[in-house]
């Protein structure tokens, strides 16, 4: 089974990124990975493995202590307009004094290169894509958590980034909303052709959404393994999650992270040579 996506050019290249905090703590030891255009890539790791730090480093909110992040071959030092980060904590990243529409328009307003009418259209289209057209005059605090995260996603999408970085965006919502939001990101990837890079500690979520998964170790983090997810496209919450390959992959990752959930599910490890777990790019340490 091959990935549904045709191979495309590498747009983001993370080369040996290390992040040490001012107090000397090593959060990220050495991360090397690449992301291709329109791909859905996840980074999974145990809780507290420096995932947020890594993501902030990838979009240049933090500077790496070693290594470099290359976007289209250019080293980035300031948050580039092609990348937008969606935070886990929507309540703090949305602006409570602006309506849903105002929030989505927020990053567009300063764009001198786009005509006002077109900006309006971009914002409305993004709001429509996340299914909040009826609520565009509401304020974020009048909406449920899941809806607020949709606003944050719409704001990011309206900006038309090439890459959307998602920092555990579904961690603070209930399970049903979570499934909705997962499918929303898949749909947005198709609709707007945005490349998605998700960090999460939820292995099932990573497997369900991704074309490729990078598994991180406990801190100081390194990439333990790069795993291709050759599950059928389009993904479906019920069908995909019950595929044999899905279980194999999630169990394999559980084994890697060395953390078994007490969910009564039988956990087994697969030999490294299992064909379903084709390793792509032997450069990964």
């Amino acid at each position, binding site marked *: 089974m091959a990935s549904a996506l045709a191979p495309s050019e590498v747009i983001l290249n993370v080369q040996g990124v290390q992040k040490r905090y001012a107090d000397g703590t090593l959060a990220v030891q050495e991360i090397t990975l690449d992301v291709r255009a329109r791909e859905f890539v996840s980074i999974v790791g145990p809780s507290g493995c420096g995932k947020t730090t890594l993501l*902030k480093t990838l*979009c240049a*909110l933090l500077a790496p202590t070693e290594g470099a992040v290359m976007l289209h071959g250019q080293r980035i030092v300031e*948050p580039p*307009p092609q*990348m*937008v*980060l969606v*935070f886990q*904590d929507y*309540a*703090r*990243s949305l*602006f*409570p*004094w602006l309506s849903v529409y105002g929030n989505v328009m*927020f*990053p567009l307003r*300063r764009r001198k290169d786009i005509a006002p009418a077109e900006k309006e259209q971009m914002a409305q289209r993004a709001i429509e894509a996340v299914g909040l057209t009826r609520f565009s005059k509401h*304020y974020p*605090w*009048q909406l449920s*958590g899941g809806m*607020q995260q949709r606003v944050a996603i719409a704001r990011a999408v309206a*900006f038309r980034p090439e890459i959307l970085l998602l920092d555990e965006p579904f961690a603070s919502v209930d399970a049903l909303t979570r499934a909705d939001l997962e499918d929303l990101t898949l749909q947005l990837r198709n609709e707007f052709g945005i490349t998605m890079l998700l960090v999460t500690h939820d292995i099932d979520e990573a497997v369900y959404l991704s074309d490729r998964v990078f598994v991180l170790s406990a801190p100081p983090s390194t990439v333990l393994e790069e795993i291709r997810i050759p599950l059928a496209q389009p993904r479906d919450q019920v069908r995909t999650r019950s595929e044999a390959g899905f279980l194999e992959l999630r169990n394999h990752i559980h084994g890697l992270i060395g953390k078994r959930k007490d969910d009564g599910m039988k956990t087994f490890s697969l030999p490294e040579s299992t064909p379903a777990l084709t390793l792509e790019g032997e450069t990964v340490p």
Partner: protein
Amino acid sequence: MNKVFNRGNASAILTVVVLLVLWEVIARALKSVYIPPISTIAVTFVHEWFSPTFAQQAIPSLYRMVVGYFFASVIGITIGIIIGTFKRMYELLDPVLQFLRAIPPTAIIPVGILLIGIGDQMKMVVIAFGSMWPILINAADGARMVPAQRLDTARIFGLTPFETLWRVIIPSSTPMIASGMRTGLSIAFIMIVVSEMIGSTDGLGYYILSAQRTFAIPEMYGGIALLAILGYLLNTGFVWAEHRVLAWHYGQTAKPV
């Protein structure tokens, strides 16, 4: 309208009526010149304040207060936001600010008289000085406590430092600024009365003090009553405006997520 005349308001009004009647009864029993019956005060109040006296005494007070308070707000917000935005500056200036704000505002009136004289300017300056501190300190705290993620969001979308200040830091600080301005307003009110009692030829502070000195006792109480009414109206008006301008803030805090 239903809200205004509900049961709670009705009993509150009843309380006021009972207190006024009590005053009337006690004052008539005491027969003291210094505590006239409320009815006498009320008659004097209407006679004094529904006359040119209002323009002569109350308008100058309000004018000085508005000008002083306006400068306090502009200077307080500007300096506060700057100090709160730049961490280094905050660390440098915070001890000085804490010291300056600890001075009871009325204590600087003699300094004002010494440096500026006893005119309108002095009163405006001491009002501005006194009411500026809570505004400045609150604006600085507001700007300092903008959630880091809001600032990160601004950076992600490529906002310049000025745009971040204007579109993120200032709006984020408005609830704090408003509460500083509310405190500042009551200080401005105290400052106007005190400064007019010390060196003035008109204004409500002057009126009350000279009424007392000339044994115009009902007039003195009438002046105090007018201050109470003005103070109440100013504060109510401020809260009303604040709830409209900061509807988002009160909506958000009323319904925690």
